[in-house]
């Protein structure tokens, strides 16, 4: 069932109606049933995968807690007779066992994900190496399909098992309640990646009918559909034409396509998020934000705190901190402080962590060298900016530049925007080589006449379409500026007179199907991950 369909809207409407009629203690069961119905609509054969993750992670959590408890019990039962050394040994033994269980669950689930996602990529690369060394033997590829949302629900579940291992909260004892956490249908397609301690209480508590939730949820969904259907799917026309036929386009045509990719990707993903968060709100559930006006970022580091936020915070909490605070990294930190001095020495482990994280972010997007390049491009910029920060601050001082002054902030935003768009060559380019060719072609035939001789209207979109895009983007920009100033749009709207509110709602309700490029693209970009 596509998220852009009347079936989905009907499903949400009917589910919500039942949700608020049935006794509140059964609400979570309804959500579980609907979530599995939704998942099955994509193919019964995939249910096994999500069930596997659900069962292994659920059991893993239970066993980790049992191990921890039995260790504690042994110590308290023998308090009088155990020496401090024996107590320490017992604690270490318990920790070791907990670690084993956690590692096993992580291996199984990330293993399945890695196999399905990267097996063929690995085979292709091995085959290339074999060709390179003159061996004619080839390894065979397998026909593998990705179960719906596997990247998202795996990350969300593995976050849970790591949290339980660290003792952050007790494990969930009800397997069906846990199954809802893994499969909740609004977030299954493309996130946001949630945390158990924030979601569980919401899933299992009783939800009273509140008109505000329904109103705000519907408004957010409407805005999301507008962004997706009017802006994203329209921009996609030019993006696909230029990127798929990349050898024929040069200069400002390429730049135009790259900028439109910014519009397409941002509108598609954030629009999708609005629909998802809006649907969840109808059920009284608050999902985490995934976007915070990313194009107002002042640096690439800032960008990754505003774009796909839940992926970034997952990486931070489950890879960045454990990696940088690990014993080997501690040792490396001490060593590099001795060798390179305190300032650089302190930063080197962080730079290494950056490169690791962004390698993972890159490869998370897909099994292709261009995605690895995309990740490393971001990682290297961040690592370098960390390393050069003292020199950078010195430079600003010498040039008497006030880093908090508005003109400088604007400069930083534009500079970051350029860097972000350069990254898109790798993300949207057909492959790594195509990205490089397109980068070169950008400087071929780079003439301002392209902007005035109508050649930008020959890329698949007519003048009126580009005007619709421009108008939509301006409206979106104004909304973003307001949000950046901490104004809550839906609450501000609620205070306006009825006529004004409904004029806006009706404008969106009619503009979306009328100006929406229905049929152009069938799904959301991030649903493929």
């Amino acid at each position: 069932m596509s998220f852009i369909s009347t079936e989905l809207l009907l499903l949400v409407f009917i589910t919500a109606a039942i949700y608020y009629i049935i006794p509140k203690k059964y609400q979570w069961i309804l959500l579980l049933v609907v979530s599995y119905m939704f998942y099955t609509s994509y193919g019964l054969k995939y249910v096994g995968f999500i069930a596997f993750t659900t069962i292994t992670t659920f059991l893993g959590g239970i066993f980790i807690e049992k191990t921890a408890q039995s260790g504690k019990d042994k110590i308290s039962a023998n308090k009088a007779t155990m020496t401090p050394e024996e107590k320490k040994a017992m604690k270490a033994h318990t920790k070791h066992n907990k670690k084993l269980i956690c590692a096993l669950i992580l291996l199984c689930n990330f293993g399945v994900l890695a196999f399905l996602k990267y097996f063929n990529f690995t085979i292709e690369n091995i085959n290339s190496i074999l060709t390179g060394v003159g061996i004619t033997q080839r390894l065979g590829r397998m026909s593998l399909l990705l179960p719906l949302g596997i990247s998202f629900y795996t990350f969300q579940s593995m976050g849970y098992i790591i949290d339980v291992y660290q003792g952050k909260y007790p494990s969930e004892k009800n397997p069906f309640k846990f199954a809802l956490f893994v499969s909740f249908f609004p977030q299954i397609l493309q996130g946001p990646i949630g945390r158990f301690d924030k979601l569980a209480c919401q899933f299992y508590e009783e939800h009273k009918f509140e008109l505000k939730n329904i109103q705000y949820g519907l408004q957010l969904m409407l805005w999301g559909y507008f962004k997706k259907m009017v802006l994203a799917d329209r921009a996609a026309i030019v993006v696909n034409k230029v990127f798929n036929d990349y050898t024929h386009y040069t200069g400002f045509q390429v730049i135009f396509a790259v900028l439109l990719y910014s519009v397409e990707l941002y509108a598609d993903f954030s629009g999708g998020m609005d629909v998802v968060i809006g649907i969840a709100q109808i059920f009284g559930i608050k999902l985490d934000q995934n976007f915070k006006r990313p194009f107002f970022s002042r640096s690439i580091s800032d960008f990754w705190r505003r774009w796909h936020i839940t992926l970034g915070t997952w990486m931070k909490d489950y890879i960045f901190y454990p990696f940088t605070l690990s014993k080997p990294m501690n040792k490396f930190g001490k060593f590099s402080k001795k060798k390179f001095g305190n300032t650089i020495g302190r930063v080197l482990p962080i730079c290494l962590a950056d490169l690791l994280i962004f390698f993972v972010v890159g490869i998370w997007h897909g099994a292709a060298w261009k995605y690895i390049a995309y990740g490393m491009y971001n990682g290297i910029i961040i690592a370098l900016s960390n390393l050069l920060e003292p020199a950078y601050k010195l430079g600003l001082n010498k040039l008497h530049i006030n880093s908090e002054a508005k003109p400088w902030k604007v400069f930083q935003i534009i500079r970051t925007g350029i860097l972000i768009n350069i990254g898109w060559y790798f993300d949207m380019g057909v492959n790594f080589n195509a990205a490089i060719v397109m980068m070169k072609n950008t400087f071929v035939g780079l003439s301002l006449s392209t902007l005035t001789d109508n050649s930008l209207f020959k890329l698949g979109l007519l003048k009126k379409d580009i005007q619709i895009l421009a108008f939509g983007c301006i409206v979106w920009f104004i909304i973003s500026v307001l949000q950046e100033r901490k104004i809550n749009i839906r609450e501000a709207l609620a205070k306006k007179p009825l006529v004004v509110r409904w004029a806006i709602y009706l404008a969106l309700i009619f503009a979306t199907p009328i100006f929406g490029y229905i049929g152009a693209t069938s799904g959301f970009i991030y649903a493929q991950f």
Partner: protein
Amino acid sequence: MEKLIEILKEVNADVDFENCTTLIDDGILDSFDIVSIVGELNDAFDVEISPVDIIPTNFNSAKAMWTMVERLQDN
């Protein structure tokens, strides 16, 4: 506590560590600052701050960090 503030100032001189109580909530310290601070605190006070300890409650103010360090020293 003064030593702690000294260390914090070394990591980021522009922050008002004496008075601010929303270092994490307001995004004044980012994850790079946190890691630098943790490294320095581990060395200076001979403690082992682990990922579980990296929560806003422990890092929102210099006082909170000091409470965490003292707790880890007692363990």
